[in-house]
């Protein structure tokens, strides 16, 4: 019965939340005490599991091993959430081109490279990392675990009630089965509703961190705006219907993106605070990694989404690495018209950066497929500039 009450209470919170969210002042920052240790059976159990996971992740090849990048991200977390707090997280950059980050209950913060490619400035990155840190600080994994356990307990009992009614029949059996199914559905739905509420809380706390930080709080909503546009572009390219951003699906673990963008924008406006965006620092930290991240993105086989993303990254100024990436993108789709466009992008990249050997390679391959006799010359230049390239033998066979 206690469990049922918990579920009902959780549902009540969820129903009430959007109403309360209207004039919701930001939460005050929780008091911080260093080196938190897990308390109680459930929390210690969860930490034990993720401690083991973290050992595995730490030694995994999926993790990008770059001390400079890692210390930069640590600095961003510190600038976002404040100095002593940030020392409780370990950051792991995982090579995964999808836009995501996650936080384990023990302070293991996983940042995917797809996030690093998409944030336009350091303030956006700080907002996302602050959101993840908020999950940690609010001990969301533990609370969520307990809620899921209560909800699944209710579901199991409702299932037994339905089975009993089915077996023993009686006049009220049909109604009992129907009611039990409703209870199961409600309990199952409450798991996702609870998760959405936690995400909202993490968003709010992240905004509170931003308020106390040197960053511009308006950036968080900007990020979500572009996420929606990119998803639209991807859907268009795949001839799929775009997601509805104004509705919450039953199984959604996060609030609808439009809703997030809207309340984050409102909060930022209410805060009436401007701040730095730290774009130069982010660009400097990512300059060594961007070619790799762009190459990973192109391999996602998402032409429209990637083209949108490249355009967003470029803004008013197409740099050589973005032009090169766009050339690779168009060449990978490979329609005759794409090859012409690709050759143009490679040439533009070479104008800015004549030492870019890979641009000559792409240019040559695009020209070759367009039956352009200039192809051999481009490929020769590639080989001359990069004689030890891994594909040099293969490229040489093309120009004989």
């Amino acid at each position, binding site marked *: 019965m206690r*469990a049922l009450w918990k579920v009902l209470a959780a549902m009540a919170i969820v129903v009430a939340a959007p109403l309360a969210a209207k004039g919701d002042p930001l939460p005050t920052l929780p008091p911080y005490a260093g080196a938190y240790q*897990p308390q109680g*059976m*459930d929390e*210690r*159990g*969860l*930490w*034990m*599991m*993720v401690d*083991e996971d973290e050992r*595995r992740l*730490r*030694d*995994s*090849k999926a993790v990008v091993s770059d001390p400079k990048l890692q210390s930069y991200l640590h600095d961003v977390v510190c600038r976002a959430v404040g100095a002593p707090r940030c020392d409780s997280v370990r950051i792991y950059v995982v090579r995964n081109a999808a*836009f*995501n*980050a*996650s*936080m*384990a*209950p023990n302070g293991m913060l996983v940042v995917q490279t797809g996030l690093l490619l998409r944030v336009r400035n350091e303030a956006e990155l700080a907002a*996302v990392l602050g*959101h*993840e840190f908020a*999950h940690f600080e609010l001990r*969301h*994994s533990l609370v*969520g*675990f307990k809620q*899921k*356990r209560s*909800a*699944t*307990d*209710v*579901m*199991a*009992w409702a*299932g*037994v009630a339905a*089975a*009993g009614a*089915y*077996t*023993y029949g009686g006049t009220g059996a049909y109604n009992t089965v129907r009611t039990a199914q409703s209870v199961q559905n409600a309990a*199952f739905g409450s*798991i996702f509703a609870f*998760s959405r509420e*936690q*995400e909202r809380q*993490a968003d709010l706390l992240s905004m509170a961190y931003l308020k106390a930080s040197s960053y511009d709080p308006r950036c968080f909503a900007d990020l979500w705006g572009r*996420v929606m546009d990119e998803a639209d572009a991807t859907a268009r390219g795949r001839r799929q219907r775009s997601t509805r951003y104004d509705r919450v699906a039953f199984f959604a*673990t*996060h609030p609808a*993106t439009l809703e997030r963008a809207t309340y984050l924008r409102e909060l930022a406006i209410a805060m009436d605070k401007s701040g730095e965006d730290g774009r130069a620092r982010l660009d400097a930290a990512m300059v060594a990694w961007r070619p790799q991240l762009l190459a990973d993105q192109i391999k996602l086989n998402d032409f429209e989404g990637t083209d949108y993303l490249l355009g967003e990254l470029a803004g008013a100024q197409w740099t050589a690495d973005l032009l090169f990436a766009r050339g690779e993108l168009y060449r990978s789709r490979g329609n005759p018209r794409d090859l012409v466009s690709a050759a143009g992008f490679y040439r533009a990249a070479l104008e800015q950066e004549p030492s870019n050997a890979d641009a000559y390679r792409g240019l040559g391959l695009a020209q070759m497929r367009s039956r352009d006799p200039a192809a051999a010359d481009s490929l020769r230049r590639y080989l001359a500039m990069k004689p030890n390239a891994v594909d040099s033998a293969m490229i040489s066979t093309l120009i004989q």
Partner: protein
Amino acid sequence: MLLRLWVPILASVCLVASGSPATAQEKSGIKPGFVLPQRSARILLIRPTIKVGAQSTGGMFEPNADWTAQAKENLAVALAAAQTKLGNEILIADEPIGPAATTMADYRALFSVLADSVIRYQFFVGNRLPTKKRKDAFEWTMGPGVADLAKGTGADYALFLFNEDQYGSTGRKILQAFAAMAYVSVKSGEHKGFAGLVDLHTGDLVWLNADLAMGGDVRTPDGAQKRVSQLLKNFPGSSQSAAPASAAK
């Protein structure tokens, strides 16, 4: 989109336990013709994966740090005792640092895939791959590179262990009783594990034993002994007729 760590809940959704999974399932295999050198084998124990906890009423795994710590201790003692009886020496690997740690992580991951493949494509007779259909065939390898794990230890074999115990909570047991009254079978508790021995010179898997329903309470020294005898059933060089594989406690 900014996920948190997701605690699996799927198991809990299936209230009705599946009847009899894979009746014809085999539990262990040994490389044909393999003989463990008598009384001289040095076996490197790779950090075992051991999880112990409870099973909630709804069927979720509730990890328990104390039980897991007890089980780790008890299983280590029981394992050393069992191997000493066979005349083998168990070496506990130091935690690797630097590039060695990456190698170790790689091979631990590879072994879990390997064990999973053996269970799925060899032990499950109805699902055997064509190359695994010959009688007494047991040809699986991790490659000779696995020798890197033995550097400086002098070990000839590596032993991998996986053990997961979910003890049915009181709530789960009550649910089970009520469900039984409605003629629905609910499984309370889960006790599964596997153990494998890899030849560190060739990388070949020489023995694997997987059991999805084991007995013995790993939280107690006696229970852990029973568990180890089941985990090491048909271990090369042992002529033990292992303790009867009782169903889950």
